[in-house]
C-alpha cells in the first residue's frame, strides 16, 4: 500500500447522534483522479473534510503520504504540505487580492521569502490561466476565475493530494471541460486528486476511478465507464436517474 498517496480505512464519523460515515474505505494512488459520487447527504463532503483535518472522526484510519491523521482533528503542522483543499464555494479571503490569497500562507506560515512567494503565486495563477486577474478582489471574479484562484491557493504549499468539493457545480459545460483539462495537467505533473462530483459525464471523461457513496458507505467502485453504464447498485442507478431527470 506504500504507493498510495491516500489511504482511508473503516472511517466512521458522527455529528451528534447521527452517524454520517459508517466505515468508508477510499484509496488514491499517485497521479490518480478519483471521483466520489453520491446523492446529497450521502457523506461525500464529510469524507473530504475528515481527510483535510477539519472534522474529527470516531473510528478508522486516515493516512496521507505516510502521515496518519489524529482522529480529533487538531491542527497538524505537516498536514497542509500533504493535502490541499478547494471548497465548493471557493472561500477566498474577501479582503485580499487574488495574488495575496495565493501567497499569504507561504509568507506567513511556510516562511517563504515574500519576493519568492509572490513570484510563485504569479506562476501558479499563470498556469491556471488567471494571471491577468492577480490584483482583483474575490468579489470581482467570476465563478470560474474564483475557482482557479482557489486551486492556486491550495497548490501553494505544493501538496501531493488535492481535494476538490463539487468543482463542476458552478460551471457551465464548456468551463467544465476546461476544468477537466486543468485537472489532467495536474495529475500529469504527479499530483493526486480526490473530487466529489454530481456530473457523470465529467466523471466518465476525466476520472481514472469512481466511488459511489450511499448512506455513509462505499457501495460501488471501479472504472467510471463500467460503473456508470452497467451499474449494479441501486444507489448508482438512482444517482444517474436524478441527473438525467433533474434540471441540469
Amino acid at each position: 500500500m506504500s504507493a498510495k498517496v491516500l489511504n482511508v480505512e473503516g472511517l466512521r464519523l458522527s455529528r451528534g447522534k447521527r452517524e454520517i460515515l459508517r466505515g468508508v474505505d477510499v484509496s488514491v494512488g499517485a497521479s490518480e483522479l478519483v471521483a466520489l459520487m453520491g446523492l446529497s447527504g450521502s457523506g461525500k463532503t464529510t469524507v473530504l473534510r475528515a481527510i483535510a483535518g477539519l472534522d474529527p472522526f470516531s473510528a478508522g484510519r486516515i493516512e496521507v503520504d505516510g502521515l496518519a491523521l489524529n482522529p480529533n482533528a487538531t491542527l497538524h503542522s505537516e498536514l497542509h504540505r500533504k493535502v490541499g483543499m478547494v471548497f465548493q464555494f471557493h472561500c477566498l479571503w474577501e479582503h485580499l487580492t487574488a495574488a495575496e490569497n495565493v501567497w499569504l500562507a507561504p509568507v506567513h506560515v511556510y516562511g517563504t521569502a515574500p519576493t519568492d512567494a509572490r513570484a510563485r503565486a504569479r506562476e501558479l495563477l499563470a498556469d491556471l490561466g488567471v494571471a491577468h486577474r492577480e490584483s482583483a478582489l474575490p468579489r470581482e471574479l467570476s465563478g470560474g476565475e474564483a475557482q482557479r484562484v482557489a486551486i492556486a491557493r491550495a497548490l501553494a504549499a505544493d501538496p501531493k493530494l488535492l481535494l476538490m468539493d463539487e468543482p463542476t457545480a458552478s460551471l457551465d459545460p464548456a468551463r467544465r471541460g476546461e476544468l477537466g483539462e486543468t485537472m489532467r495537467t495536474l495529475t500529469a505533473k504527479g499530483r493526486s486528486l480526490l473530487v466529489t462530483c454530481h456530473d457523470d459525464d465529467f466523471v466518465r471523461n476525466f476520472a481514472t476511478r469512481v466511488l459511489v457513496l450511499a448512506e455513509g458507505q462505499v457501495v460501488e467502485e471501479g472504472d467510471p465507464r463500467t460503473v456508470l453504464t452497467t451499474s449494479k447498485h441501486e444507489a448508482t442507478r438512482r444517482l444517474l436517474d436524478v441527473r438525467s431527470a433533474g434540471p441540469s
Partner: protein
Amino acid sequence: MCALLVLAGCAARVFAGGVLRWGGDAEGGAPYVEADANDPTKVRGFDVEIAEMLAKAMGRTPQFVQAAFASLDQSVKRGDFDLALSGVEDSAAKRAELAVSVPYYEFREVLTVREADRERFGTLKDLAGHKVATLSGTTAWEILSAAQSEHHIEAVSYDDDMHPYSDLANGRVDAVLLDNVIADRSMRRQPGLFTQPGAVAVGHYVILMSKEQGALQKSVNAELRAAMADGRLETIFRKWKVWNDDQPAMHKRVLAGADSLLGEAQPDAAGATNATNAPPVWTLTIRYLPSLLRAAVITLVLSCVAMLLAVSVGFAIAIGRVYGGPALRSLLTVVVEVTRGTPVLLQLFVIYYGLAAVVRLPPFVAALVGLGFNYAAYESEIYRAALEAVPRGQLEAARTLGFTIWKTLRLIRGPQAFRYALAPMTNDFVALLKDSSLVSVLTVVELTKQTQIFATNLGTWAIPGALCAAMYLAMSWPLARLAGRLETKWKAPTA
C-alpha cells in the same frame, strides 16, 4: 358643557393666582433649602421660610419647585416659577437679564483649608501652584478663575458643595473658597478643617424674577424691607444659626434705599467681582473663547484616549467571548451586561468617590477609566458580532493551509471584522465625544462644563450654546466623513 369648561378655566386661573411658585435646589441642602427627611416632598431652610413669608404677605400659597442650582436663573426667566431663591448670589450679569430683589443676606467668600495648613495657606496668594475648589457657576468660581492667572492657583469646579470639602479632607485639593454659610456647615460635617477668618470677597443673596414681573419685584422688595425693619428676617436667620454682625449694617443700607449693593464693600476680591457694569456680550465671548477652546481640547483628548482604552479592552473581551472556554465566556457576558446595564454616571461616581478610600484616582484618570470601561462593553459586542460575521468557510480554508487560530485572527478574521465594525465604532466614538460631558461630575472641566460656566456668567445660553455645538460638530463631523469614505472604498466593487 361649555359652561363647565368656562368654569374650570376660571377655577384654574384663580388657583394659579393663589399660588406662589418658587424654585430652589434641595440638593444645596440646609440651611438654604433641604428636603425634609421625614417627607421628601416637603422642604425646610431659611430660604423656604423667606418664600413662605413672602407668599403669606401676598395672600398666596407657596409651592416649591425643584430646579438645578446652575439653571435657576434660566428657569425663572422661562417662567417655570415666579421666584428663585436658594442662596442665589447677586451679580451684574443676573441684573442684566432678570428682575432682582434687594439683597436679603450678606455673606463672605471664605477660604477653608486643612487644620495642618492653617498657617501655610492664609490667602489665595499663598496657594500658588495648589488646587483650590469651589462650586461651579458661583462668584467664588469667578474669583478663582481670575486667581489662576494672577496667583497661579489651579481652580477646580464641583457640581455640588459637599465634595469640595470631602476632597479637601482627603487631599485631592488644598483649599476651598465658598460662602461662609456653606463653609460653617461643612466644618461641622467634616472634622480636621479650618476656615480663615478674613473674607476674600463679600456678596449678597438675592431673589430672582423674570423681567416681566415688575409688580412682583416691587412687592417682594417692600416685604423684604418690612421684614428687615420689624425683625422677622432676623428671627429666621437666627433660627437657622446664620445671623451675624454683617447683617444689621447691610439691612440699614437697604432700608436707606439701596436696591443693590453690587460694587460696594469688596475687601480684596481678585478683580472678578467688582464688575458693576457687565461687559458687552461680545467682549465676554472673546474673553471666554480661549477657555472654551482649551475645554474642547480636553474633551477631544479625553474622548480619544478613552476610546483607545475602550477599543483595546473591548477587543480583548470579544476575543475571550469568541475563543474562550465556557467559564470565561459566561464571566465576560456578566461583565458586559453589568457595565451596559448600569448608568455611566453611576459608574463614574463609584470610581471617583466610592473608591476614594481604596485608591485615590486623579479626576482625569478616573474619567478615562470610567468612560473607557463603559464603552469597552459596547465595543466588545460590536467586535464579537463582526468576528462572527466572517464566513466560517474562510477560516476553514486558512486551517487547511496550516494557519494557527491566532494567525487566522491576525491576517484573515481580524482585518475583515474591522471593516464590519468600523461604522458602528464611529457611531460610538461620536457618542463618547458627547458622553464625555458627564465627567464634569468628577471636576474635569470639559467643553460642556465650560460652556455652562460661560452661560451662567453671561446669563444666556444662546451664544455659549451655539459655540459649544459648533465645537462638538467640528470634532465629530470629520470623523464621520473619514469613516464613511473608508466604508465606501471597501464596499464598492471596482470591476
